[in-house]
């Protein structure tokens, strides 16, 4: 008897099949983990179950009866609750108000909070939540906020509880408490679906585990009978090296020197914890890790997009700890940003205008405060030829109308052509087709071979293994491994990335 069965679910987004014929069965009273890499389709699947997305194909059954879930309201009525990765809480409402929102009790139109208060207090006590229900959300910690989300589900007597990466924002102590709560809830008759990448957590609480990879269901296993290594392999698959002609790296001088970077969130959680490393000329250093383990914060700190609490960053011998973005650019840092539409391009500008985003004021493109249109167009045409950028109207194509791969090529061309000393590339192949990926990998290697330092931040294990000369793995804001791609396996990397294994990493000479 399955309390929930999602049968043959297919959900497509433009250009990608996020869920491909997935069947998932949830038993009563079980904690069922959903494991998979970024983009494997876990969150999409749960969003379908919660009514945020509508599947193209497939059916959902609750207690063996088919149900149609076309919105969160429907999900609520069926007893399905969800703790989203980004909490859905109103910051200036009290805990109690947030809990009753949507299922208020009224008498003659006036809110009746007394019963609600008693029920919430009783629930809070039962699970040992120790929460002040009259405090406003903005005044309580993230861990407490998550408890509010849990109370929201319990208050509604939801029996199917979905947790979308619930531990990502928590401290270790809070994680322990959450695990305990989950077990208690399961013991009391709830059924739990639990999205995670962390193998330890699965081992700790889950009864069964379903593994997704690239939108497909790989399988469902009993956790007790399966080792972490096996789970890791299911998650990452048996990956093969793409044939990438790669010469031996000729390592040169240290270009970027990062020491003891620390960044804490407002709540005091470590976002970056004593990050130290060097990037040398002629090498591709890869920062691997699951999304959200501090990579973005690290890149922002290095490129100047946001600040950090303490630590130092040196470029060659210049201290750039507090340098402005333009200064860093002029010192030779190039940056292929994670989100090309947010940071990388001005989509309303033409291709040519985007090629001079950081250099428009130099004498090549400006004379007496005027843009040198001819030089800019010629420059853009040169890049179009050299990097094989395809666009409808050449240099004057509106960037918005270009394909993702060609947009990325514009950024790559612009950043590489500035002849930087250090190239920071953040998920440079995200969302691109195979041809474009290969092209970008070759360009990164060419940079390395011409003596540049390359810092590659990637979530894709194949990319990490194929392209890099050295791998640092980040987990929870810390570097937990410093390994050589030739001496490490996918499975080992999977263990590091999911927090199941760690080394002491030190860069001090």
């Amino acid at each position, binding site marked *: 008897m399955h309390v929930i069965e999602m049968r043959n679910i297919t959900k497509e987004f433009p250009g990608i099949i996020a869920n491909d014929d997935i069947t998932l069965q949830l038993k009563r009273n079980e904690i069922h983990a959903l494991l998979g890499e970024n983009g494997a389709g876990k969150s999409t699947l749960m969003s379908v179950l919660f009514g945020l997305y509508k599947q193209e194909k497939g059916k959902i059954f609750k207690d063996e009866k088919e149900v149609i879930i076309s919105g969160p309201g429907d999900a609520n009525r069926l007893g399905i609750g969800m703790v989203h990765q980004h909490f859905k809480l109103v910051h200036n409402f009290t805990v109690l108000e947030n809990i009753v929102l949507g299922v208020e009790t009224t008498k003659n139109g006036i809110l009746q909070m007394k019963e609600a208060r008693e029920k919430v207090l009783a629930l809070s006590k039962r699970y040992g939540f120790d929460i002040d229900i009259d405090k406003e959300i903005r005044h309580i910690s993230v861990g407490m906020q998550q408890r509010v989300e849990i109370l929201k589900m319990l208050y509604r007597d939801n029996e199917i509880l979905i947790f979308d990466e619930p531990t990502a924002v928590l401290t270790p102590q809070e994680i322990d408490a959450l695990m305990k709560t989950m077990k208690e809830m399961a013991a009391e008759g709830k059924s739990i679906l639990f999205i995670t990448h962390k193998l330890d957590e699965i081992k700790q609480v889950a009864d069964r585990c379903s593994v997704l990879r690239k939108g497909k269901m790989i399988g469902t296993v009993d956790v007790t009978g399966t080792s972490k290594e096996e789970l890791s392999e299911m998650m990452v698959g048996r990956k093969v090296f793409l044939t990438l002609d790669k010469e031996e790296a000729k390592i040169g001088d240290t270009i970027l020197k990062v020491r003891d970077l620390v960044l804490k969130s407002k709540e005091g959680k470590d976002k970056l914890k004593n990050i130290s490393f060097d990037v040398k000329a002629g090498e591709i250093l890869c920062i691997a890790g699951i999304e959200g383990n501090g990579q973005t914060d690290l890149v922002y700190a290095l490129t100047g997009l946001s600040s950090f609490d303490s630590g130092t960053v040196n470029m060659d011998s210049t201290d750039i700890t507090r340098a402005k973005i333009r*200064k860093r650019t002029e010192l030779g840092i190039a940056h292929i940003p994670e989100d090309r539409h947010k940071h*990388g391009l*001005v989509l309303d*500008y033409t291709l040519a205008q985007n090629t001079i*985003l950081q250099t*428009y004021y130099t004498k090549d493109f400006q004379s007496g405060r*005027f843009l040198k249109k001819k030089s800019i167009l010629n420059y853009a045409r040169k890049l179009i030829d050299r990097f094989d950028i395809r666009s409808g109207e050449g240099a004057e194509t509106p960037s918005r109308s270009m394909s993702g791969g060609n947009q990325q090529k514009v950024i790559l061309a612009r950043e590489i052509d500035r002849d930087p000393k250090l190239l920071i590339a953040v998920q440079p192949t995200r969302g691109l087709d195979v041809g474009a990926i290969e092209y970008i990998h070759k360009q990164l290697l060419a940079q390395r071979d011409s003596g540049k330092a390359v810092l590659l931040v990637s979530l894709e294990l194949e990319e990490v293994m194929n392209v890099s000369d050295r791998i640092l793995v980040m987990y929870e804001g810390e570097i937990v491994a410093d390994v050589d791609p030739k001496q490490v396996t996918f499975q080992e990397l999977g263990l590091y990335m999911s927090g199941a294994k760690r080394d002491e990493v030190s860069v001090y000479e």
Partner: protein
Amino acid sequence: MNRDGLLSFLSSVLVIIIGLLIGFIVLLATNAQQAWPAFQTILTFGMRSMRNIGDVLLHATPIILTGLSVAFAFKTGLFNIGASGQFMFGGFVAIVISIHGVSMPPAVRIPVAIIAAALAGALWAGLPGLLKAYRNVHEVISSIMTNYIAMFFIVYMIQSNESIFNRGLSTSAHLPESSNLPRLFFPDIFRDALGAGFVSSRVNIGIIIAIVVAVLVYIILEKTTFGYELKACGFNPDAAMYAGINQKRNIIFSMMISGSLAGIAGALNFMRGGGVGIGIIEVLPVEGFTGISVAFLGLNHPIGIIFSGIFISYMQLGGGRLSTYGFSSELVETVIAVIIYFCAFVFITKSLIGRFIKKKERGI
């Protein structure tokens, strides 16, 4: 014109047609017999004589400039709803210099008055700019406040200084004839025969200044590195930050330039002679708000704004004749309001037209 430009142009035309249609319906509803002649007047009066054409250009001058003011800020991602106050400040400063600066020869005095008006508008717009850049105050809200502060302040200044106050008419004093903008050879062109002589439009060098300013704005936005920075901030602030562009500085500069354009509008408006002055009434000058419709109708493009400004002035001139048919001139303002309303979702009309054209192309 490329496809996108064509779509934008068509959507402007569509918006105008909707506005006029609603205006016509209002006319029909109020007095069906006079509706058609009245409507014809709106559509044709502006070109019935050379003098009328001159008057269209005369009244287009300030709203082209306030339109440019709104559009310039909008290109940087800012909504300058404060053009009214900046317009008043510019006009006020120009009036003061025109009256008190008679020791300067007109050839000096007039440019000085216009430049001072631009500065006054710039400074007044700089305040919401500063508040936006450093205190994160939304420029629309602060501009509403600065509009009223400017209005009360200027009304007080005029009222309490005899030298610039015309108590009888309850407006600012008339400017000396020598302070009025030169009319060049225009009176010989834009004139109607009247009896034995002629009567000319008061159109003056102002319209030329407005067109030159529009071209300058075009050059600044499209040809200079400064314009490149400003637009980058407007289109995508995150990418501008990534590129190392100083956003705070650009927000302030953009507001100041926008304000200076509104300030010039005020100067040219009140230096046209013919008894126009700042009234001692507590109403914001409508030119600032008309500028919003001019800007959006002109697709926020400086050259487009020259035409949309002339078009709106043209309709207003025709509207001014509606009393002949028992209607009041405010009808045209309601038409303009309807046009602004539809401009609010001009992007939607654009995509509708785009879909329509696509269907046609496919032969459906």
